[in-house]
């Protein structure tokens, strides 16, 4: 495999029984790319990540992953039981498991420092002794991001990691990802089409098929057109027409409105 590419999908199709989730997807993700995956609900984005992780079988096609790199993953939905007796710090550190010895494993000072530093950055350090079920949705999401980042993975796959976060934290997470993407290949699924273009290096729009994949200056325009279903020029024109209408009618609708 060409070592310039960390992920390569060739004609990948995935079906759940008779339900088509992905069809004939072909694209590559370059070393240290920061790619945003965009598409409608049910478009097969999570399936794409699960295929990369080997969690769903491919009906056809081939996936190659740079064998020298380890993977970090933030799932869209926590698959574990939230009443499980484990605390935040232990969950974050668990991202390191599998790297060192199996028997009588202990986390050393360095591991714990890394964990604390990461948790501080994400604003969850003071939650470190909380049981995992006592967190809010957004706090839990941050814990999962920390667990994925702690092992310094070469490839980071994130499935809507910012879905339940407030604007400030969302920004912080994107900044963190942007920073790590100098050394790490980041693939992120998101619906934040307003913010994502300031951070990513490339985007792919997936709705069963790959409708767009690019990293040029037009990626924003192309994706917005796919997302809204009409050319951006039309959207802009419509807005202008509305504005004209609005001026012409003398705002008679809005007078009745109190807020």
């Amino acid at each position: 495999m060409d070592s310039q590419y960390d992920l390569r999908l060739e004609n990948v199709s995935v079906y759940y029984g008779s339900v088509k989730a992905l069809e004939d997807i072909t694209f590559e993700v370059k070393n240290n790319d920061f790619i945003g995956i965009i598409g409608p609900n049910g478009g097969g984005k999570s399936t794409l990540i699960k295929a990369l992780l080997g969690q769903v079988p491919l009906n056809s096609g081939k996936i190659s992953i740079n064998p020298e790199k380890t993977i970090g993953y933030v799932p869209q939905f926590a698959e574990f039981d939230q009443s499980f007796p484990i605390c935040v710090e232990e969950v974050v550190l668990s991202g390191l498991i599998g790297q060192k010895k199996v028997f009588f494993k202990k986390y050393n000072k360095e591991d714990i420092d890394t964990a604390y530093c990461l948790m501080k950055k994400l604003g969850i350090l003071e939650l470190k002794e909380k049981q995992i079920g006592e967190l809010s949705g957004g706090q839990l999401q941050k814990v999962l991001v920390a667990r994925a980042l702690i092992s310094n993975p070469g490839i980071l796959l994130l499935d809507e990691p910012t879905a339940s976060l407030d604007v400030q934290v969302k920004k912080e997470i994107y900044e963190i990802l942007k920073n790590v993407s100098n050394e790490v290949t980041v693939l992120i699924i998101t619906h934040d089409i307003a913010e994502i273009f300031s951070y990513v290096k490339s985007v792919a729009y997936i709705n069963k098929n790959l409708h767009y994949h690019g990293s040029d200056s037009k990626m924003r325009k192309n994706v917005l057109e796919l997302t809204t279903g009409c050319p951006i020029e039309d959207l802009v024109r419509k807005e202008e027409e509305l504005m004209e209408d609005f001026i012409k009618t003398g705002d008679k609708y809005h007078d009745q409105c109190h807020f």
Partner: protein
Amino acid sequence: MINAIFKYSFMQNAVLAAVMASVICGIIGTIIVEKKLVSMSGGIAHSSFGGIGLGYLLNVPPILTGMLFAILASISLPMIKRKTDTNADTLIGVFWATGMALGILFIGLTPGYPPDMTSYLFGDILTVSSLYLVLMGILGVILVVLLTSMFKYWRIYLFDEAYMKVLKINVNWFEKILYIMIAMSIVLLIKVVGMILAIALLTIPPAIAKLYSKNLGRLMITSTVISLGISLLGLTLSYYFNIPSGATIILLAAVLYMISYYIKKILFK
């Protein structure tokens, strides 16, 4: 009671069995409760009845054939589930009933008077044999060593198997070992409290412990201590009042659960 322990070897055996059963319960009980394997454990317990019946028919120690059946069930249950995509609950029901039916059939086929099954159904800690004690001791040591030497791995396996797979750790290995340990534990507990009550002894102590702790290691230790307390007390009561030991132990556990629940409610309101 203390005198009786010194005087009668059956009492010494009973006390030893109670201690070892408590270690097994504390560890395996906490695991099956946290991993949501309680009904699967019920299925394994009842499957073993087929093996116990077979033991009588073939005239070999029923515990060995019972253990064989339990281990076979615990290995094939997850395998069939994966292969056929059957609902786990349905499959457990099938194993549960088939095991019982086989047991009844084998015992029916056994020549001569039908053997007395009550000690398998309801347990009898006062007649624990030395074979049992040796097996329990071996299992207890294996459990403690396995758990303490790889505690961090077990915790993540129990908590989030899917992420463990992402980290490229062989989850199957953990699953197989765990299921075999569960199967062996259940069969050994059958002698103490009986097949019908084994699940209760596995689940009530962790449930009590969970009222007070949210740390996996502490949960296991607390459950062990609770099991030990109730089984020794149950043993004493059954000795003095000449009542069935298994039922006494389980009823004590249930009462302790209720008391703990209300204490917690009052203290931590």
